[in-house]
């Protein structure tokens, strides 16, 4: 735990030592605002809720979270610091966890900074703040899922662009796995069990459940499992890459 804390601190410090953090946060907030008010029709809907805001989270994360995740390991490999890091007396699990948690905390900070929209909706009407809190939790968990996928994939390469593009594609698959676009790939040949399995992996459906204000244990477990599985895979990939 002590090691993870040290790694976490170093990593988070690095975000704010470069313009990356500020650029990310500003763009994130601007896009959130634009989508909510223009595309989402926040005012036109005439309802005191944040559906117009949360509906766009999966799509924004699809591009912004891989942008955060792509540097996690690809940059370490490119600059050679991975050799320094992995010869310190830490386990690969600690290294992966420390970096992931820092990136997750960072997206959490960006998410928290959207609070003016929550103030706005409370000023304009009387929204169900429980539902909003649930949606924030769901959004944060979904960001964690995307991040874990991106972190794992960035360990494959030293090229951040490749890490980004592959992550976007895989995240897109996860996002839409409950929809025909993905299911049709399996429907023809795979057994129904598999098709149902793939369908149940959709980030969108699980997020939609939570953002309606229903915090179902199954949805929480789902995101926790996605994160754990990809982080575990991340340590395996690191091991492979070190062997060659």
């Amino acid at each position: 735990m002590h090691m993870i804390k040290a790694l976490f601190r170093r990593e988070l410090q690095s975000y704010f030592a470069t313009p990356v953090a500020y650029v990310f946060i500003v763009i994130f907030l601007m896009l959130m605002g634009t989508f909510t008010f223009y595309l989402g029709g926040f005012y036109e809907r005439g309802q005191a809720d944040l559906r117009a805001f949360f509906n766009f989270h999966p799509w924004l994360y699809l591009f912004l979270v891989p942008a955060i995740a792509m540097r996690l390991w690809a940059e370490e490999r490119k600059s050679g610091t991975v050799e320094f890091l992995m010869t310190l007396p830490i386990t690969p699990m600690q290294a992966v966890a420390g970096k992931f948690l820092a990136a997750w905390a960072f997206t959490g900070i960006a998410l928290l900074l959207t609070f003016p929209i929550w103030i706005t909706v409370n000023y304009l009407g009387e929204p169900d703040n429980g539902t909003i809190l649930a949606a924030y939790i769901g959004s944060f968990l979904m960001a964690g899922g995307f991040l874990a996928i991106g972190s794992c994939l960035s360990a494959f390469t030293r090229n951040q662009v490749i890490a980004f593009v592959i992550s976007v594609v895989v995240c897109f698959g996860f996002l839409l796995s409950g929809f025909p676009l993905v299911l049709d790939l399996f429907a023809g040949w795979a057994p129904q069990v598999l098709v149902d399995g793939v369908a149940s992996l959709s980030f969108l459906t699980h997020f939609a459940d939570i953002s309606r204000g229903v915090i179902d244990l199954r949805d929480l477990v789902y995101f926790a499992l996605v994160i754990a599985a990809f982080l575990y895979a991340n340590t395996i990939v690191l091991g492979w890459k070190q062997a060659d």
Partner: protein
Amino acid sequence: MLETKGLTKRYGRHTVVDDLSFSCKPGEVLGFLGPNGAGKSTTMKMVTGFVAPSAGTASICGHDILTDTLAAQRRIGYLPEGAPLYAEMTPQQFLDFVADIRGLSGNERRQRLDEVITLLHLAPVLNQSIDTLSKGFKRRVGLAQAILHDPDVLILDEPTDGLDPNQKHEVRQLIRSMSEEKLIVISTHILEEVNAVCTRAIIIADGRILVDDTPKNLTEQGDGDLDVVFRRVTQGSDLPEKEADSCT
């Protein structure tokens, strides 16, 4: 105590390190010599637990690097080739991070940090981002993190590569000053360095040990010129190119 047993690394069909066995004890400064691509860095990466060997293993102070990795890594201070560092951090932040990971705290931590900062003359650049430092300073920050926890075993991959003559001199003095109580392995292709700091030299080429002797004996064999011995054993003849100068 550092020991390797049949250490081997193969990439596909290519064998980079071939059944390397040697042992080394505290007080020794072992110079690892060889042409580029001889397997020096790969050996160091395996000994420090970064690269997994295809066969064989290494142990540090009795801790096997494959089965008792963390205990072995705690005993090692390692400067990887090219001294990779987190460019966006300042030396102060970087050394604080290393002190955290190395479990230094309280008085001991302050003392060790002060000591390495003084020893490597880092005070003037402590709060400047590593990005903006000269090569010499970067190398010194890399050395500082390697010796911060006062390790029993120091493994330095080309510690003076890219430094100017004064800086080289300083780093060599530093290595000599630490050599009594520590076991130090340095890799280099600068032959003068071997005479300057090493008590023992191993010349490897194609992943195999060709020579294992004291620098003094080697120099005598080459009629006072280590270059001659180096070329003779690594190329099998006295070719005119001076491999030793390729790095400067």
